């Protein structure tokens, strides 16, 4: 009863209603509540230990009164949130519910007054349903709950597959990939006739990939081509599978899947798929075909977002072909059409690369400065540092070059850090700073796929420091892993070390025996 009075005290008087009695007089409040009770009937009809079921009937009674009675009947307290919740709770609601679970009763009665509710062990909490305030994640969670409730009430409803599909979608957008995979799989199993099933397979594949399950993802994507061979998503699914195969370093299957897509280009692909195919072809080293696909995509779309993405991919592919004039032309086109596009910084970087390759370091440095002004992401920022360091190094400005290379070498992207470390070490060697160069090569050793390159550098430094034993040890250790030119270079270094060696240098030590 204290809770009842407290809840009542929270609510300001509505202008339509007669003035409320003084809030300080609990007896008056109690009387008023009793009088109002006449229009409400709330009864807990479940037994002890059962889930709470209620009978509720009301005609135009204020929502808060009904909710207070519901809360009371179930041993809870009604709590109203700040702001609009109190005025809204004065709205009259009609209710006619029989043996309904507590959560549903509260949700529907509060909802009829424009409130959203939450039932906890001790409270019934209500807040104003304000779309501009609610977080999208909250709305998604409520959508999922509502879809599930609807399915629970009528599992055989005609639109049940659609509701399941929406649950999967909402879970995906909420970031709950495990649950979304489960929802999509249930849909695939139970509703094979559902019209949007290809989308379920496609998204289920992406959810698997998000969970790191590449095999599961590939199975979902490749199933689309088998089950719905004429669906528009076939190409997109195959392209997604190509990316997945490449993540697994399975280039054979990646090429196979990509070939299917490229063959389908003749039948006409969606611009988005063409751009995706172009990007993948370029990443796989087929720059020529990538340019072809991307030009085709750019001719067939007027979507600014797609065009912006396509132009960037085209400039990358042209850079892969070393078509530097083409890169400059594409970059100019991009800058004219999308000066503040999200990939503008990358375009400026590509422009800088092209000018450097064409022997114009000054224009390249200007492009890099523009790229930095466009607030690039970390990766492009580091690429700019690397390129700047390389340009300065080529121009003989070692000190400036070292600053850029030091920054790039310290980054977390191995494909940027590795060339930066190697170039920086080379500059240090040229400056006679062998120990500093050794440290950089040792750091390079820790980067995947750069062990042999780092070993060659270490062997060279050792030789320059006249540490022939160390040079031979490094060569000895690295030679089994080296192939081609790297192996030849290591052997050259070993021979040089042997030529320079004195008899004392080559006596085996205890460490050599162990090795």
């Amino acid at each position, binding site marked *: 009863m204290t809770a009842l009075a407290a809840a009542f005290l929270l609510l300001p008087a509505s202008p339509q209603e007669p003035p409320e009695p003084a809030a300080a007089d609990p007896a008056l409040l109690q009387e008023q509540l009793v*009088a*109002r009770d*006449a*229009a*409400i*009937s709330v*009864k807990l009809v479940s037994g002890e230990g059962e889930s709470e079921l209620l009978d509720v*009937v*009301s*005609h*135009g*009674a204020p929502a808060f009164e009904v909710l207070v009675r519901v809360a009371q009947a179930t041993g809870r307290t009604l709590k109203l949130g700040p702001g609009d919740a109190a005025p809204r709770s004065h*709205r*009259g*609601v*009609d*209710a*006619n*519910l*029989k043996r*309904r679970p507590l959560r549903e009763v509260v*949700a*529907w*009665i*509060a*909802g*009829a007054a*424009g409130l959203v509710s939450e039932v906890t062990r001790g409270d019934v909490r209500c807040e104003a*349903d*304000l*779309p501009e305030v609610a977080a*999208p*994640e909250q*709305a*998604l969670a409520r*959508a999922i709950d*509502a*879809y599930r*409730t*609807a399915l629970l*009430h*009528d599992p055989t*409803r005609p*639109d049940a597959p659609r*509701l399941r*599909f*929406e649950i999967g*979608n909402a879970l995906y*957008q909420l970031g709950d990939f495990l649950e979304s995979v489960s929802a999509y799989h249930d849909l695939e199993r139970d509703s094979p006739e559902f019209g*949007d099933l290809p*989308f379920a397979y496609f*998204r289920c*594949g*992406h959810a698997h990939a998000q969970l790191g399950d590449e095999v599961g993802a590939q199975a979902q994507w490749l199933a689309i081509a088998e089950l719905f061979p004429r669906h*528009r*998503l076939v190409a*997109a699914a195959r392209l*997604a599978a190509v990316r997945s195969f490449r993540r697994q370093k399975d280039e054979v299957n990646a090429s196979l899947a990509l070939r299917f897509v490229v063959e389908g280009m003749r039948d006409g692909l*969606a611009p*988005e798929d063409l751009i995706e195919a172009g990007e993948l072809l370029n990443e796989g080293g087929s720059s020529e075909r990538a340019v072809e696909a991307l030009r085709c995509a750019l001719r067939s779309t007027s979507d600014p977002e797609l065009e912006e993405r396509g132009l960037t991919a085209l400039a990358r592919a042209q850079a892969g072909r070393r078509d530097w004039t083409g890169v400059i032309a594409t970059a100019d086109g991009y800058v004219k059409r999308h000066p503040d596009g999200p990939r503008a910084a990358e375009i400026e970087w590509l422009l800088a690369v092209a000018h450097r390759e064409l022997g114009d370091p000054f224009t390249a440095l200007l492009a890099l400065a523009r790229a930095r002004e466009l607030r690039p992401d970390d990766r492009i920022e580091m690429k700019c540092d690397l390129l700047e360091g390389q340009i300065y190094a080529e121009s003989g400005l070692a000190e400036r070059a070292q600053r850029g290379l030091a920054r790039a070498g310290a980054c977390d992207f191995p494909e940027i850090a590795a060339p930066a470390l190697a170039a920086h070490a080379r500059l240090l060697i040229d400056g006679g700073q062998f120990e500093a160069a050794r440290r950089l090569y040792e750091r390079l050793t820790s980067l995947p796929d750069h062990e042999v390159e780092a070993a060659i550098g270490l062997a060279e430094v050792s030789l320059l420091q006249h540490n022939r034993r160390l040079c031979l040890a490094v060569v000895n250790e690295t030679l089994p892993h080296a192939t081609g030119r790297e192996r030849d270079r290591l052997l050259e270094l070993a021979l040089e070390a042997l030529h320079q060696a004195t008899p004392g240098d080559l006596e085996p030590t205890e460490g050599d025996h162990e090795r």
Partner: protein
Amino acid sequence: MAHDPADETLSSDEIHEALEANEPIADELLEAAADVPIVEPRGEPISVSSSPGQTRAAWFFGTVVIALLAVQTAQPFLSPAPGGNEPSIAAAGPAAPVVARASPAEEIDRTLREMRVHLSRGLYEDVRRLLEPLVDDPARLDRDQRFEALIMLAKAYRSLGNVEKAQHYSLLATDQMIERREPAEILEFAGTLANDRRQDEARVELMKLLARRDGFSEKDAPWLSLAEARIADAWYTQAKQSGHLAPLPGARAPESGR
């Protein structure tokens, strides 16, 4: 009030007044129900919005009818006929089956007639025992029959001293007689609001519908089921309209738009 007063048998103010008072609406309804002819079908629902004069007149005639019935019922016991073997009114009363091969609706009408007599004779437990299962089954009674049964149950419970149950059935009877928009119309209206990006208002309309869920007949069940899905759709659309959700893979495919 949540509903449009122009469409109702009861106006907002009347209901408000009725609810504020010490259950006068139930009394009014009960008295009005007592006046309803037992056999003849009603062309219009019983109006509870009559003037106080009419109500008093109805109350008076109801009282008179009940008193006459009571006297008639009690007469055989007070002064037995000399013959003694003549059947009493009570024995030959309306409880005996009258119509052979009656339709289910007629059967219900007959039961209701019997219950009215039982009520007038003070057999409240019988009324409760027979009518309660009947009103629990929404498929068996039409709108008017359900109203009548609920009113009689309310009266029986009041006479038995169970004010809470009496109030419950009075409210159910009122709910039965309020004219509202059909669920299909409400869904259409909510759809219009949702199309105008007013998802919250659409939800309120649908929630109002669901809050009265058990007052509808079985034929409305599909609409109510649809309303639940529409509420979920409204939440989902609201989340999408925020523009802060990551796009779904494949969502740009032109043929679906999902």
